[in-house]
């Protein structure tokens, strides 16, 4: 048996899914958090049944890729748990009626039930059950209220005889249902609502956006740098370094095996960034350089997501984004890209047209550095002075704007306009936020550490076999002639395909000037996506568009690197 969780966007399907199956999924306060489907299992009596978290949809007539996924899923399910936002009953019932018309057994979870009371909404549950002809269970997914009753009622899901109606007839039916079951009393605005309104007005919204941006930047740097200087650096330097030095002696101090495991040791000290052994840089880069930044970034992003700020930022950014061939909602995948480009490219599914998805995915792959790469930019470029970091970020921003402008004028078609629901601001639950932070940080470790260790191993072997030397001589005209980097720098570009953080680390031992480091970081950021992003791009864009996108990446990287080499 297969149970589908379906409902409008941002009504809490993913939270209910987690409650039912124990499978942790990312849930946020904006429409379109779930763009693919996740499945899990739950016990129903003696039976184990599959539960699927379906992307949110307003109707069964899809308008974007995420909604098409929802429609395809519907064909495969046996029972539907229709999650309904109790504070927006009328609009939510449209999908409910469509589901009933398709003769699927339905049980309704009337979620966000706790909000109805202080929003002055009274719903007569018995009458609603009677009008719909299916079980209706009030739930508060974030606290778990009503989950037991919901599970008990799954076997009672029913598909009452419902005539297939047209759109206007459906709305008329809904109107008569809500007239009978819902009573609304007037009440005053809360401060959260006032703040919400202020966030989408040009002046106050602009001020709020700048404040959010500035505090995000400050908080992320403060948390990540504190974690590094007070916890991780001391751990590596005082506890781990002596262990490595002992091990180095045991392995004889030199040789291929020694270099792979420990890396190069100079004058009796472990340089965790430059030594490039599995146990030195292989651990230091992911744990002490990148992880603190990941934790800090996702903590702040999670807070903004759960409060419900991102859709408001989309409204503010809409006019600018239109110049780049996108609309405001594309800011959400873009912001996700500052964490990791993989979920960012997936999140472009919330955009309506293929054109927008191509532009958004290409811009993200080129100009949006992931958290791992940013951590290394702060670590390595930041050492030479804050102004160099500013040049890297400033250049990426300018590239984002110019390239978006060019794509908007060259890619055929036009971009649709913004049409989004803006969720109310909600006070986030700390438990849910920390859980999401844990999922993302843990996800980084299990996905990145094996690849980083693999990359370090490959790098050592390729150096040993002198493969990089051969490539370096071949590519020297571009790498040295055009970009002004030492010809060995090409090794980093090659490894950039595996992981960009390790690749940037490879530039550290080359004794580059600050300018070369800036050019190197930028070319590495823009040149080509890492393998994980590459796979997702290929799947989401198709072979032809992926090739186009890759061509744009390589040209943009070489042009930008070449120009900076000339003017810096």
């Amino acid at each position, binding site marked *: 048996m297969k149970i589908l969780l379906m409902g409008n966007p941002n009504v809490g399907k993913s939270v209910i899914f987690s409650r039912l199956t124990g499978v942790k999924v990312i849930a946020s306060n904006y429409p379109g958090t779930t763009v693919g489907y996740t499945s899990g299992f739950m016990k129903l009596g003696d039976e184990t049944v599959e539960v699927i978290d379906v992307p949110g949809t307003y109707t069964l007539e899809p*308008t974007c890729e995420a909604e098409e996924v929802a429609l395809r899923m519907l064909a495969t399910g046996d029972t539907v748990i229709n999650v309904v936002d109790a504070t927006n009953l009328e*609009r939510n019932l449209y999908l409910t009626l469509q589901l009933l018309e398709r003769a699927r057994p339905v049980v309704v979870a009337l979620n966000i039930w706790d909000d109805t009371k202080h929003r002055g909404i009274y719903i007569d549950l018995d009458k609603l059950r009677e009008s719909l002809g299916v079980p209706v269970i009030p739930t508060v997914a974030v606290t778990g209220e009503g989950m037991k009753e919901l599970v008990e009622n799954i076997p009672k899901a029913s598909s009452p005889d419902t005539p297939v109606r047209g759109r206007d007839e459906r*709305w008329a039916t809904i109107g008569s249902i809500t007239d009978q079951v819902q009573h609304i009393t007037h009440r005053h605005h809360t401060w959260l609502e006032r703040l919400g309104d202020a966030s*989408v007005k040009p002046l106050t919204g602009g001020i709020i956006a700048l404040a959010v941006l500035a505090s995000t930047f400050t908080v992320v740097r403060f948390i990540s740098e504190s974690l590094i200087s007070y916890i991780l650096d001391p751990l590596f330097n005082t506890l781990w370094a002596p262990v490595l030095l002992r091990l180095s002696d045991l392995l004889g101090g030199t040789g291929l095996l020694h270099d792979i495991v420990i890396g190069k040791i100079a004058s009796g000290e472990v340089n965790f960034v430059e030594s490039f052994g599995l146990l030195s840089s292989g651990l230091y880069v992911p744990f002490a350089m990148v992880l603190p930044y990941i934790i800090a970034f996702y903590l702040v992003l999670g807070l903004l997501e759960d409060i419900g700020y991102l859709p408001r930022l989309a*409204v503010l950014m809409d006019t600018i984004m239109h110049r780049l061939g996108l609309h405001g909602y594309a800011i959400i995948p873009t912001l996700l890209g500052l964490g990791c480009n993989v979920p960012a490219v997936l999140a472009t599914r919330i955009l309506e047209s293929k054109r927008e998805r191509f532009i958004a995915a290409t811009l993200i792959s080129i100009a949006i550095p992931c958290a791992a790469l940013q951590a290394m930019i702060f670590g390595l470029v930041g050492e030479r002075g804050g102004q160099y970091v500013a040049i890297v970020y400033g250049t990426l921003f300018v590239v984002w704007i110019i390239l978006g402008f060019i794509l908007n004028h060259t890619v055929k078609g036009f971009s649709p*306009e913004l*049409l989004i629901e*803006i969720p109310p601001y909600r006070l986030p639950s700390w438990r849910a936020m920390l859980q999401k932070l844990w999922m993302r940080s843990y996800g980084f470790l299990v996905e990145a550490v094996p690849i980083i260790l693999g990359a370090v191993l490959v790098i050592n072997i390729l150096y040993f076999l002198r493969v990089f030397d051969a490539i370096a001589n071949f590519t020297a005209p571009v790498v040295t002639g055009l970009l002004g980097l030492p010809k060995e720098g090409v090794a980093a570009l090659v490894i950039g395909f595996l992981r960009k953080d390790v690749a940037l680390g490879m530039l550290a031992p080359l004794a580059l000037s600050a300018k070369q480091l800036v050019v190197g970081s930028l070319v590495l950021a823009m040149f080509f996506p890492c393998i994980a992003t590459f796979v997702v791009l290929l799947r989401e864009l198709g072979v032809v568009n992926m090739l186009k996108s890759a061509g744009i990446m390589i040209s943009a990287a070489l042009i930008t690197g070449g120009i900076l080499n000339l003017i810096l």
Partner: protein
Amino acid sequence: MPEGKQITLTQMQIGQSGIVVQIQSGHGLVNRLSALGIRPGRRITKLSSMLMRGPVTIQVDRAQVAIGFGMARKITVELD
């Protein structure tokens, strides 16, 4: 009962309310707006609009919706 003044959503002032009378657009957009609760006969309030032909934010029932300028221009509202 005298009819109220009919203007487009983009012409409405911030804070004004009215009833949607017409959406001059193709089937696709009418359907999308309708799914978000914006359809003839519904009462809406304009909350804000962005500069330079930016999106308009409205309140419909207890939901807020942001609508691109071009779409908002196609929605005719009869003021209260």
